[in-house]
């Protein structure tokens, strides 16, 4: 199923930010229909994204059950380090606990392996799997269409339980599909614009000097993160924490953290202006869906 975490959703709805695993605290959600302990519980109970996500899951579950399948409500996935710190790790407390978040990724992998929908799917016959995917995704990936900013046309089925759930929750499925796919593709564009900006490059220089002074000769935060998170060559936790902590401390003292934040804000607004329709649609559709979502979760199964 689909988990949407577009930055513009947050900006458009409220000024709140999604809380990650800072300090290791987690708040169980009273409206959460699933009884499984979930790393998704890192978010506050009334977080709009969480509410919308769970409501969609409940609708999908009902739809799949009507078609004769078992389906378990998926908990919202935890925020990945690339979402929490898109450019530079700048939270020393988080860095001290998680480094670059490889511990969280390993935990997430274990959760996924134990996921009941995944197990159910993999234990099904070939025909059973075909029916499950067809009933969830739709049998053909056509019906919905959106043209991304750089020209690629992305399509998706307008049938199936996921589409039906989104139609019920958001009302205008076509607009929802366009809004989410277009704004979702803007995040990567934004980061490219930020890192290409000479103000960012100028701010990286003192950061790199600070890092070098601590014995970490990396040219930019992309390099340091890549070094610590290379696939198949895991670092000892203490080493990962050491580098991430230095990165965070240097990000603060050099001013890179502030520059990155302000450039992110500036380019987010700029890209929103370049795509006004999808940006506005995303904010409006999520705002209008929230009361529906609360009703869906309140009445339960």
């Amino acid at each position, binding site marked *: 199923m689909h988990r949407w975490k577009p930055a513009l959703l947050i900006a458009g709805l409220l000024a709140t930010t999604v809380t990650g695993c800072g300090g290791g605290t987690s708040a169980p959600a009273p409206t959460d229909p699933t009884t499984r302990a979930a790393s998704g519980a890192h978010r506050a109970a009334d977080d709009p994204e969480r509410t919308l996500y769970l409501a969609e899951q409940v609708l999908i579950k009902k739809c799949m059950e009507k078609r004769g399948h078992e389906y378990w409500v998926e908990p919202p996935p935890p925020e990945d380090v690339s979402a929490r710190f898109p450019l530079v790790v700048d939270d020393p407390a988080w860095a001290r606990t998680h480094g670059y978040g490889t511990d969280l990724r390993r935990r997430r992998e274990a959760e996924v392996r134990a996921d009941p929908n*995944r*197990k159910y*799917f993999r234990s099904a016959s070939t025909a059973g799997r075909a029916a499950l*995917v*067809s009933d969830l995704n739709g049998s053909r990936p056509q019906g919905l269409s959106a043209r991304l900013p*750089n020209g690629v046309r992305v399509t998706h089925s307008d049938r199936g339980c996921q589409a039906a759930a989104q139609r019920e929750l958001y009302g205008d499925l076509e607009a929802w599909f366009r809004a989410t796919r277009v704004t979702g593709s803007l995040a990567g564009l934004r*980061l490219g614009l930020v890192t290409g900006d000479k103000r960012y490059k100028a701010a990286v220089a003192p950061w790199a000097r600070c890092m070098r002074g601590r014995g970490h000769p990396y040219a930019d935060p992309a390099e340091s993160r890549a070094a610590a998170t290379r696939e198949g060559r895991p670092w000892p936790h203490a080493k990962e924490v050491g580098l991430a902590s230095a990165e965070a401390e240097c990000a603060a003292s050099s001013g890179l953290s502030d520059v990155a934040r302000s450039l992110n804000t500036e380019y987010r607004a700029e890209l929103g202006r370049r795509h006004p329709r999808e940006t506005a649609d995303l904010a409006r559709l999520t705002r209008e869906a929230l009361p529906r979502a609360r009703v869906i979760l309140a009445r339960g199964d």
Partner: protein
Amino acid sequence: MSIKRMLTLAASAAAVTVLLSPVSGASALDTGSQAPVAPRVAAADGYLHVYTQPYGGGHECKWLGNSDNWGTCRNLTSDIWNNGYAGGNDAVDLYTAPSAGGAHACISQGDRWIDTTTGEYRFTYGAGLEQFGASVNNNISSHRWVDYCSQG
């Protein structure tokens, strides 16, 4: 074009990379046959499907799990379809280099990019890494199933 045809014939028994994820448990499948031009409904699914030509043309490779190297489809694809099932990782990060190396793009569950030869769709994840900003067409070498497709 003729080289592609040679590769297709020579590799027909191994067109699909063996699943490398330790938790997948599924076996390698032979999809060396030429796919018809029209997009067709797969017999079984939950796969990431890729095609060497747009609109389901050329030959197809597909995976239930991750792949470190797209083999006969490596750097040759123009049509990507994520037909994964629910259960955690159902989005796919598409990497320019083998073993999840370099910059990547991401395709969400149920989405299809039926023709990446049009426009200039780029690897938009991995600022600072190899091929960041380059076109994804004929430029993908490996993939990983992930939780979702948005960042920051």
